[in-house]
């Protein structure tokens, strides 16, 4: 399968804690993208990391990519209640025009 597989599938943390979620995939990729989906704002692009990059930051988000292990992680630091959402990794397979969304991680941040 080309789609990403997120782990854990559900995560519950206290506000202010860090949240880490992982994504594994099986094919070579051009890049890997993370998206967030909540009822208020729909599906929103968070960050893109290229296959030749190992780490990328955007605000409170930190993404790592290990192409040798075909895995990525998304870290949200100092979580807020507004971070409650489902987080999807979407590998962009090499030679393919299609993002391969996983089933998502459901994150609940408790105020």
């Amino acid at each position, binding site marked *: 399968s080309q789609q990403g597989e997120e782990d854990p599938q559900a995560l519950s943390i206290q506000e202010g804690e860090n949240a880490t979620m992982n994504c594994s995939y099986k094919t070579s990729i051009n*890049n890997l993208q993370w998206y967030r989906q909540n009822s208020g704002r*729909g*599906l929103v692009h968070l960050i893109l990391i290229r296959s030749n990059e190992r780490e990328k930051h955007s605000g409170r988000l930190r993404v790592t990519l290990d192409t040798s292990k075909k895995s990525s992680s998304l870290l949200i630091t100092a979580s807020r209640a507004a971070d409650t959402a489902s987080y999807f990794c979407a590998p962009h397979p090499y030679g393919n025009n299609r*993002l391969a969304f996983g089933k998502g991680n459901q994150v609940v941040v408790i105020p």
Partner: protein
Amino acid sequence: EAGVAQSPRYKIIEKRQSVAFWCNPISGHATLYWYQQILGQGPKLLIQFQNNGVVDDSQLPKDRFSAERLKGVDSTLKIQPAKLEDSAVYLCASSPYPGVEETQYFGPGTRLLVL
């Protein structure tokens, strides 16, 4: 800038009926996507347009689903006849340029329930 617009937001139909969804992408975006998201799963690409041409429709169930983007701007997705398993959220997305580093901008989706 205005986001991707979709209508209707909700639709309830009976099986074997037909239904159509409409999408207006962000102005100037050449690429338009339709996704199907079943509850508890990630979005699955149904069809991708580049301007008014189809780039990828390999996962579109063509016996019942059809889509068009006649003038390279807005698009419609139709299901005829609907089945129970078509119950899902139908997401439209657009991106400003094709390529491997595209960022996709999603609309709010149309939630379809087939009874």
